[in-house]
């Protein structure tokens, strides 16, 4: 076989020699011959050879393409192509190419249609609080539960009627034989397209007015009989895709609302509250206003502006009256004609509507507030709000809510209510726009005064702000925080506002941002704690069977949060009632969804109530509504998932219906039922699981072929679950599942969808756990040579996971050969270098271990070949592969091969791409680690000098790998390199101390220790002490750590004299550095410190008396570490002495200093015992000055917590008085 392979290698190599197109020419290295060093590192020519001395600054200097090509060929460094420079030159300076691409921070701009539905909800009037003492508290318009329920009922009724109308229309269309698309699904006022108010044709320009035949027909479905003008009546009925394709195909997120509308812009993309949406385009605002008249529709400043303009235009375009005409025309020479008899003024209402826009529908005329400061196009960067201090910014949008603050009215003339309102407004503005300290102060004030302000005034201002269409993430976060804080304070006062708050907060629960969801949950949970269960249920009950699915969805989620806050048992009776509601299927659906959400939210916490929850929803499985059945099975799946692995007995009641369900249903319903079964089976004991798996499997296998993506995912999931249970035997899987499974799922198409891909890999790995590696791998190994790359990748990932979990022990010789062959093929054929391939390769070779010896020459030749590839990615991957298989090569005894590899890698150290260079260094490190310092080729004494200059490289990956390698050499093979070289390394290392990555800093610091050990601490220490003088703090801190490490590795006595001597340098930074180093030293050396305490005590005395705070702070830290190190080693005298120096610092106020002082005292109380400390503390516990008492009690408490028992004999004796006896007489016993 070996012959066979070597012949194969030879053939391979010959083939490659012919096809050397992919190889680099200039830097190829022969294994045997002398290596060519990288020219531009070692500098064979002048430093500036190959560089242009200046960059061409304009277009004229364009060289001819041929010359360019020649230049490119010996490119010394990698820069942008000339064309790119030329392009940059031609672009104007102050054009921001990304201007149009910056993601908007506005929440409204990134929402999809579903999320936007939140804007359709309104802040309903406050509700009455049935628990309140006086009923009129929430205002006269507060509604009772009955009223709200009635209204909800009405709304549903309305929706039903709308649906009937739509159906009738459909019918009518059918009878006329016309196949116009169905009208948009009406769902009451909740949808934007189909508002029930008469629709007005837009006056402004929009996509609708573009000349096409739709617009030419002024008729619409509101006015005409189905017979007339059949062809053109489709304007409103048509699915809008036909009208303007470009805007429809565009991404759904609306372009910024403030932008001036461009020609392409379709008003369908806009939120209804956006300016053009409100006036003219879709009369949503009007619709809203009509439904709930007492709602003031929030208007953005843009909206107001638009309204003003529109008003002005209308004034100018109004029909001319007779007086006007008289004024215009000369009085003589003109006759007023009578209108012809045949003239008919327009009477049809539809045309009238389309003819004149009614821009003020619902809003009425609005007087411009004269006192309102207008920013005429200026955006003031900083604004003085009276009494509010300087705000960093004040946006135009803020004017709408906070404009009042700027009117400079005299507050003394106002009523108490107004003053309160302004006060709240000012605080909110500060919270929204202020600097962090302002924000903090304002937040505290608003929290403290929440009850004085009252719930009404607060929420009436906060909630509209949260509904604003221009709201941004940060603002929402802040306002939500405000609500959270004031909820605590307001407690039961919030009851009338619960619904309003829910309307605003519920959308957070389905936000795409995780933190928004968490925030929303927190608020709702606090809200339910403040308002109580009864109020929450009464408030949310009407929304449970709301007409809009969006409302029901968010309500269900909110309810699950309530359940988690107040406990499931409290909510159970209600849930049972809702899930069995006879009134509407929506209510049942929502109820069951609540259970599902509870399971998802609470996880295993549902276990105590599992039986009840399952029973509550069990009936849903046989509901007549398909949707209810589906959500029930999903809820059961969620419950089973949360309960895993317990609670199978709770599911007894649903097993039967589920069982008959999977036999009855098809399609989506079946998918949900299968999912439920799939999650229940893992809970069963082995016997049952086996039985049920066998029962369900035929259906699963039937559904293997389903083209439905959702079904595929669920089937895969269920197969995974079933295969994971104990009862299912490997033999069964082999015989029944595997053939069909591989036939249907292991196809190329599955690799294309990310989620399918993942699920398939997971399921296959799970199957492999049962049936073993060989069974699975042998089936897919041939696909490693498939022509589709994504598919190969999927195969590779599966093999990697299977092999890494189960090992390669039962892979036989034949399979092993095919496997390596396939992997090599897949690895070489990748066009996109992928970590999956690399991992797979590494894992398989490592799993095979010694058995891969036969293939190593071939693998090595592949690596060598790829190391010289043109593409940087390929080279990087080859180097990475070396580091993965180095251990195996050693196991196989291929030291010689590794020596070769080391040599080659060494030659490539001139690599120009940092990523690749990093990998090459990593590979070298792996080889050095494995074969050891002495047998390394190239020898260490050649390798290290080559690494020193690379330490200058600023790239993180290069730095990390290089410092690891250097550190390794310093640790194990320092003797191979001269001391002078190590000093050079030391200097380079200093720069590494300020690296961003902690790993690099740590490696650098450790390397200092190794080097100091190798060449003695003196020189290294000198370097480090000098480095204490640098300005940069991080650099100094790392230097102190390095000094401490040197002290630790070379014994402290070699370092301390020089270090303490350095303290005499009259420079703050240096002295602090010395103190800090001492702190580290004593931390690291622990009890070795007992020999050095007396030596450093005078220095610490001095530091603890220094004027400089940091001196004392750092000295305190040192004392802490010192005292903790020498507990019980007989150094109490020195420590007591130091305590006397530490103690006067207890009144420091700077947080870091007082912290350090407290730590020092705590450390000392460990070392000296609580008896000593309490002697000090007793002096001040009852001091007349509160400030003194406070700090003394704090120290006492700290000491007390640490030594409650130990302090007992040391309490001072308190004399008995007339009433009380404080004496603890037991302690006086003497026998």
């Amino acid at each position, binding site marked *: 076989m070996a012959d066979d392979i070597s012949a194969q290698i030879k053939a391979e190599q010959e083939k490659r020699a012919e096809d050397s197109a992919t190889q680099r020419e200039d830097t190829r290295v022969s294994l045997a011959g002398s290596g060519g060093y990288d020219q531009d590192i070692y500098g064979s020519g002048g430093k500036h050879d190959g560089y242009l001395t200046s960059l061409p600054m304009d277009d004229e200097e364009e060289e001819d393409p041929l010359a360019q090509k020649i230049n490119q060929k010996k490119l010394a460094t990698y820069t942008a192509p000339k064309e790119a420079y030329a392009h940059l030159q031609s672009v104007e300076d102050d054009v921001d190419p990304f201007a149009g691409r910056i993601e908007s921070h506005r929440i409204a701009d990134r929402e999809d249609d579903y999320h936007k539905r939140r804007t359709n909800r309104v802040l309903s009037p406050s509700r009455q609080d049935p628990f309140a003492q006086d009923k009129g508290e929430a205002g006269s318009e507060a509604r009772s539960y009955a009223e709200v329920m009635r209204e909800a009922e009405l709304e549903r009724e309305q929706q039903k009627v709308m649906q009937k109308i739509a159906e009738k229309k459909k019918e009518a269309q059918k009878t006329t034989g016309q196949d116009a698309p169905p009208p948009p699904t009406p769902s009451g006022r909740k949808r934007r397209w189909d508002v029930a108010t008469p629709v007005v044709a837009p006056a402004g320009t929009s996509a609708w007015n573009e000349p096409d035949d739709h617009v030419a027909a002024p008729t619409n479905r509101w006015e005409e009989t189905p017979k007339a003008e059949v062809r053109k009546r489709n304007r409103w009925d048509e699915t809008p895709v036909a009208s303007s394709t470009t805007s429809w195909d565009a991404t759904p997120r609306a372009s910024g609302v403030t932008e001036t509308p461009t020609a392409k812009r379709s008003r369908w993309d806009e939120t209804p509250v956006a300016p053009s949406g409100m006036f003219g385009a879709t009369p949503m605002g009007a619709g809203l206003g009509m439904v709930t008249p007492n709602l003031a529709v929030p208007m953005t400043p843009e909206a107001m502006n638009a309204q003003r303009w529109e008003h002005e235009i209308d004034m100018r375009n109004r029909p001319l009256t007779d007086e006007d005409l008289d004024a215009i025309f000369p009085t003589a020479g003109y006759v007023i004609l009578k209108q012809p008899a045949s003239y008919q003024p327009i009477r049809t209402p539809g045309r009238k509507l389309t003819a004149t826009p009614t821009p003020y529908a619902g809003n009425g005329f609005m007087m411009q507030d004269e006192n309102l400061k207008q920013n005429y196009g200026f955006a003031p960067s900083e604004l003085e709000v009276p009494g509010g201090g300087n705000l960093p910014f004040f946006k135009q949008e803020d004017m709408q809510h906070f404009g009042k603050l700027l009117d400079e009215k005299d507050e003394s003339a106002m009523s108490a209510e107004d003053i309160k309102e302004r006060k709240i407004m000012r605080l909110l503005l500060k919270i929204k726009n202020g600097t962090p300290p302002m924000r903090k102060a304002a937040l505290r004030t608003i929290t403290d005064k929440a009850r004085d302000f009252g719930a009404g005034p607060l929420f009436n201002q906060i909630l509209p702000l949260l509904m604003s269409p221009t709201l941004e993430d940060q603002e929402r976060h802040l306002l939500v925080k405000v609500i959270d804080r004031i909820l605590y304070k307001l407690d039961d006062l919030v009851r009338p506002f619960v619904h309003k708050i829910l309307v605003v907060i519920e959308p957070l629960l389905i936000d795409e941002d995780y933190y928004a969801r968490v925030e929303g949950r927190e608020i709702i949970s606090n809200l339910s704690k403040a308002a109580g269960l009864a109020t929450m249920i009464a408030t949310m009950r009407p929304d449970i069977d709301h007409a809009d699915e969006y409302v029901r969805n968010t309500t269900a989620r909110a309810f699950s949060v309530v359940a988690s806050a107040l406990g499931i048992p409290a909510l159970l009776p209600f849930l049972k009632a809702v899930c069995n509601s006879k009134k509407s299927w929506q209510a049942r659906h929502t109820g069951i969804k609540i259970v599902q959400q509870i399971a998802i939210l609470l996880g295993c916490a549902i276990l105590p109530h599992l039986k009840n929850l399952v029973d509550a929803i069990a009936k849903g499985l046989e509901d007549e509504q398909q949707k209810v059945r589906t959500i029930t099975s999903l809820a059961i799946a969620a419950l089973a998932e949360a309960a895993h692995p317990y609670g199978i007995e709770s599911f007894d009641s649903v097993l039967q219906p589920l069982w008959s369900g999977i036999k009855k249903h098809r399609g989506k319903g079946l998918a949900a039922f299968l999912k439920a079964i799939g999650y229940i089976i893992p809970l069963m004991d082995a016997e049952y699981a086996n039985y049920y798996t066998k029962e369900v499997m035929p259906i699963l296998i039937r559904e293997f072929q389903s083209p439905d993506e959702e079904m595929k995912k669920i089937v895969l999931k269920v197969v995974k679950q079933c295969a994971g249970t104990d009862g299912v035997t490997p033999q069964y899987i082999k015989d029944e599942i595997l053939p069909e499974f591989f036939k249907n799922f292991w196809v190329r198409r599955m690799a294309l969808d990310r989620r399918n891909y993942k699920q398939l890999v997971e399921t296959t790995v799970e199957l492999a756990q049962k049936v073993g590696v060989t069974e699975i791998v042998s089936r897919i190994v041939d696909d490693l040579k498939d022509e589709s790359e994504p598919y190969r990748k999927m195969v590779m990932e599966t093999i990697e996971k299977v092999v890494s979990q189960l090992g390669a022990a039962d892979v036989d010789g034949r399979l092993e050969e095919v496997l390596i062959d396939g992997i090599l093929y897949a690895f070489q054929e990748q066009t996109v270098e992928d970590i999956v391939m690399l991992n797979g390769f590494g894992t398989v070779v490592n799993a095979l271990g010694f058995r891969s010896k036969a293939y190593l020459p071939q693998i090595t030749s592949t690596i060598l070949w790829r190391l010289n590839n043109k593409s940087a990615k390929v080279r990087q991957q080859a180097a990475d592969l070396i580091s993965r298989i180095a251990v195996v090569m050693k196991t196989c005894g291929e030291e010689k091969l590794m020596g070769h590899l080391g040599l080659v890698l060494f030659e490539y150290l001139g690599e120009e791409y940092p990523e690749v260079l990093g990998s090459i260094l990593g590979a070298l490190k792996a080889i050095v680690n494995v074969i050891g310092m002495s047998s390394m080729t190239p020898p260490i004494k050649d390798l290290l000098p080559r690494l020193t200059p690379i330490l200058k490289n600023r790239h993180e990956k290069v730095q990390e790998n290089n410092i690891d390698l250097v550190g390794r050499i310093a640790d194990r093979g320092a003797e191979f390199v001269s001391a002078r070289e190590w000093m050079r390394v030391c200097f380079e290392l200093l720069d590494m101390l300020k690296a961003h990555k902690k790993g690099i800093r740590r490696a650098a610091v450790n390397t200092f220790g190794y080097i100091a050990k190798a060449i003695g601490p003196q020189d290294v220490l000198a370097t480090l002490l000098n480095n204490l003088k640098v300005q940069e703090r991080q650099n100094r801190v790392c230097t102190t750590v390095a000094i401490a490490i040197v002290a630790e590795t070379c014994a402290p006595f070699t370092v301390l004299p020089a270090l303490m001597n350095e303290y005499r340098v009259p420079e703050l930074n240096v002295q602090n550095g010395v103190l800090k180093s001492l702190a580290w030293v004593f931390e690291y050396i622990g009890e070795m410190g007992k020999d050095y305490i007396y030596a450093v005590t005078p220095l610490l005395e001095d530091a603890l008396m220094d004027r400089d705070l940091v001196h004392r702070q750092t000295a305190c830290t040192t004392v802490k570490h010192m005292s903790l190190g020498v507990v019980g080693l007989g150094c109490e005298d020195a420590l007591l002495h130091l305590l006397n120096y530490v103690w006067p610092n207890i009144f420091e106020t700077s947080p870091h200093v007082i912290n350090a002082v407290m730590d020092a005292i705590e450390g000392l109380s460990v070392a000296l015992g609580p008896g000593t400390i309490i002697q000090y503390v007793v002096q001040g516990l009852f001091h007349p000055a509160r400030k003194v008492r406070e700090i003394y009690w704090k120290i006492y408490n700290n000491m007390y917590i640490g030594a409650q028992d130990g302090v007992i004999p040391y309490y001072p004796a308190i004399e008995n008085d007339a009433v*009380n006896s404080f004496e*603890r007489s037991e302690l006086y016993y003497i026998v």
Partner: protein
Amino acid sequence: MDRSNLNSQLEHLQSKYVGTGHADTSKYEWGVNQARDSYASYIGHYPMLSYFALAENESIARVKFNITEKMLQPCGPPPERRD
């Protein structure tokens, strides 16, 4: 890290323990805490109990019982509240 935060963290930690005090702790409160801590400690250290039993010429169980009883108002009735 700001000042109030740091202090409040420490104070929060301390306030979890019953026996800790603060600037307004009275002599009576402190005395009671001391006494209870002491009694708890005696009960926890058996040699102490046996030593006291020897000194008092009582059985160990009796000493233990007495001490436990004394935990309630160890220093007598609390002083009159002066508001």
